[in-house]
């Protein structure tokens, strides 16, 4: 995973709450067995509408998405994060993220920055006044800046550290393999196993 410190890019306003993962990437695109190449699938249903925000020329190349509350609800599909990432988004800003989506983002280097709803609306207003305006997200200082306005965002300390260091979770966990083995030695004998199969 690449290290993430700051990113500056065109902001795109998605003025809706409850943007669920079926909207971010419809199920029909989940049949692929690769981990990349999902850019065409992002918001596939909505992108058929020529007026959809990402189809407008001023938001071409947008890399910071500013969305309504409860972004990423629904399915656990990490494909939603892959689609945002492959399209070119580096950060999503919202006042509330679904837990699984937020976790998935942190694994893939996509910054899920949580701000107050009033700050989301402030950013929407700035983007409406100056369509295509750039937004900067600074993970070091945990701020979102648009023009002269700066607002703080929240992210859990562990995810922030991992993103800034570009660390892979599995590698970190395997440093504690001795603890895993020790725990396995204490598991009760009545716990089920899938093998040998009984039916």
């Amino acid at each position, binding site marked *: 995973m690449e290290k993430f410190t700051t990113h500056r890019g065109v902001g795109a306003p998605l003025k*809706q709450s409850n943007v669920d993962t*079926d909207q971010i990437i419809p199920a029909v695109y989940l049949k692929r*067995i690769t*981990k990349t190449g999902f850019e065409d699938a992002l918001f596939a249903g909505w992108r058929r509408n020529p007026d959809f925000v990402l189809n407008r020329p001023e938001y071409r190349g947008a890399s910071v998405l500013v969305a309504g509350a409860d972004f990423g609800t629904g399915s656990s599909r*990490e494909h939603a994060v892959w689609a945002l990432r492959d399209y070119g988004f580096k950060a999503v800003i919202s006042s509330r*993220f679904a837990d699984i989506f937020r976790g998935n983002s942190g694994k893939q280097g996509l910054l899920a920055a949580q701000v107050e709803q009033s700050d989301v609306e402030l950013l929407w207003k700035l983007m409406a006044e100056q369509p295509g305006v750039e937004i900067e997200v600074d993970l070091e200082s945990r701020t979102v800046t648009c023009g002269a306005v700066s607002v703080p965002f929240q992210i859990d300390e562990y995810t922030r550290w991992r993103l800034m260091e570009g660390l892979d979770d599995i590698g*970190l966990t395997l440093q504690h393999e001795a603890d895993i083995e020790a725990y396995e030695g204490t598991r009760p004998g009545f716990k089920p196993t899938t093998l040998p199969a009984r039916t």
Partner: protein
Amino acid sequence: MTSTETTAPRTLAEKVWADHLVRQGEAGRPDLLYIDLHLLHEVTSPQAFEGLRLAGRGLRRTDLTIATEDHNTPTEDIFSTIADETSRKQIETLRENCEEFGVRLHSLGDAEQGIVHVVGPQLGLTQPGMTVVCGDSHTSTHGAFGALAFGIGTSEVEHVMATQTLPLAPFKTMAITVEGTLKPGVSSKDIILAVIAKIGTGGGQGYVLEYRGSAIRALSMEARMTMCNMSIEAGARAGMIAPDETTFDYVRGRPHAPQGEDWDAAVAYWRTLRTDEGAQFDREVVIDADELEPFVTWGTNPGQGVPLSRAVPNPEEAGDDNAQDAARRALEYMGLEAGTLMKEIPVDTVFLGSCTNSRIEDLRAAAEILRGRSKAESVRMMVVPGSARVRLQAEAEGLDRVFTDFGADWRFAGCSMCLGMNPDQLAPGERCASTSNRNFEGRQGKGGRTHLVSPVVAAATAVRGTLSAPSDLEPVA
């Protein structure tokens, strides 16, 4: 949730958490938790297997891992080659990966194949006090046994494959207390839809929900699974119900249930898995079971629901500007007008199935309504059992005949029209009463319109052709 205070009164979720602690997180780092059971299916696993291969890692505990084919599988003809090339490729990839890594797989045509959240409990692999994960948000289903069970993304699937653990930040706890007695025709599906309408689709974020109270105690295991299944629709990662005699009776004798002395040791442990007197929840919500009616959604998220006896609500009354916008958008998508009585809404399709409501009790409850009645001509009805085993059992009980005599399609097991990854989809504008869990735009097919309902409401709707409760039906002559 703190796992260190073992002497203070603890909630059920805190106990299960503490019993799986491999390593306590230091300095704001997450705890490392052991995973007792990892369920796999074809959609969210291929990239995880690929990750293992690229890193030269093995799958640590194949004996705590099991796979089934469900999301993509056809439900009409399971014996021919799958027509959709990408679906076929995904299923073939699962088969190759399971072969290569030594994972037990139940494939199409196998008696144990079916929806992953139906298969685990049915085999007795889901037991109280376990940690259960799967790359599927409806893993919350298994919480009905007093397990801590939650959905994970594909990176986490790979992590569990490689380490049999997950780094997790502690959850908060929320008690959902449901006291009283459900009226006839009201089911656990109606309770959970009412809970979601009350706390909202984001209300459970960061929480593990514990369902408790006399109305929950009175539910069967399968009804409890329906409730826990939809915890994710309230934004919660997991829902749990303390195990009791109902739970033990359900587990006893299943293929992977403990036997002999192991059974006694297991039950002794399981009996400790209840929230202690005086334990504190971070939030409490109370629901009066006596007041509940059959519930139905009108919008495009599961929180947009009302009692079936009511009308489509007015967006002006939906709360703040954002909620009003969302409600207006939902009505436009759903092709509905505020003020229309829910029971006057005609549907084109009735779908009985999904990990929420496709178990034998769901099929029995629906069949009970349909027996001796005939289907509204304008409606098509599809019945998709949750597993091949459920299908066999239903056939042994003659339920398949009830469905086919009524005019419904009797299908093979899988996720089917819940998410339309296989050919079972709604056409644009088609309206469906569905026993599944998500009424998102396009979920059941591009442009499809979904109303979430219980199995008996689905059945009554198939009889009348408009959204209906069993109490709306004429008695069978």
